[in-house]
């Protein structure tokens, strides 16, 4: 019974963690892309002949902006959908000797 309660706690905290991972990464990416897109349009309006160079620079900076978002989204969805949640596995691995012994 106690193990079930601990597993339940881990699951609920995992859900909170997934929410934070997805939410904060989305927020950060949205702010980053907003600033990036605004500056890109500003730059193209000022000097249209630099547009191809600005496109490549924007692609590079976008790669930097979304890097951490990709990692946290992947980790969040992994915790949510993976068949073997590593956190619950750790709890069960600790509980196994106690129940058998």
């Amino acid at each position: 019974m106690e193990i079930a309660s601990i597993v339940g706690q881990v699951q609920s905290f995992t859900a909170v963690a997934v929410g934070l991972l997805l939410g904060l990464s989305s927020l950060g990416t949205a702010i980053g892309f907003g600033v990036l897109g605004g500056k890109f349009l500003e730059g193209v309006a000022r000097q249209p002949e630099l547009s191809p160079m600005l496109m490549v620079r924007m692609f590079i900076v976008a790669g930097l902006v979304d890097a951490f978002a990709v990692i946290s989204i992947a980790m969040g969805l992994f915790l949510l959908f993976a068949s073997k949640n590593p956190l619950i596995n750790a709890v069960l691995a600790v509980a196994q000797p106690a129940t058998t012994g």
Partner: protein
Amino acid sequence: MPGLTANKEAFRILYWQLLLIMGLAVVLFLLQGTRSGLSTLLGGLAYWLPTLAFVWRVFARATARAAKQFLVLFIAGEMFKLVLSAILFICIVKYLPVNLLSVLIGFIGAIIAFWIASLLLLGRHEEVSP
């Protein structure tokens, strides 16, 4: 055609990124075996393939005049890339017999490879243009 240059540069970054991912996979293959090497390669491809789709879709239509249209395509493509790479990552971890740590190393390595490739390209540009 101005869009062609941007297209070429973006594909060059992707080419270098793929080379770095394969190098990382070979290193893990030599250090930890076949399964680890394949897992690293799959993790890297989970980020590289959506990026390829993004570049192929966005930069193919890039022209100097349609900056606003480019921006809209860019942001939509970026969201598509984020979701697709997360889905690929989960599918690999869930349905294939892989080593989780190696997949993560490959995935994060692919992102770092993108930074390295970009910085190398930017550095070369700075050297060429005064």
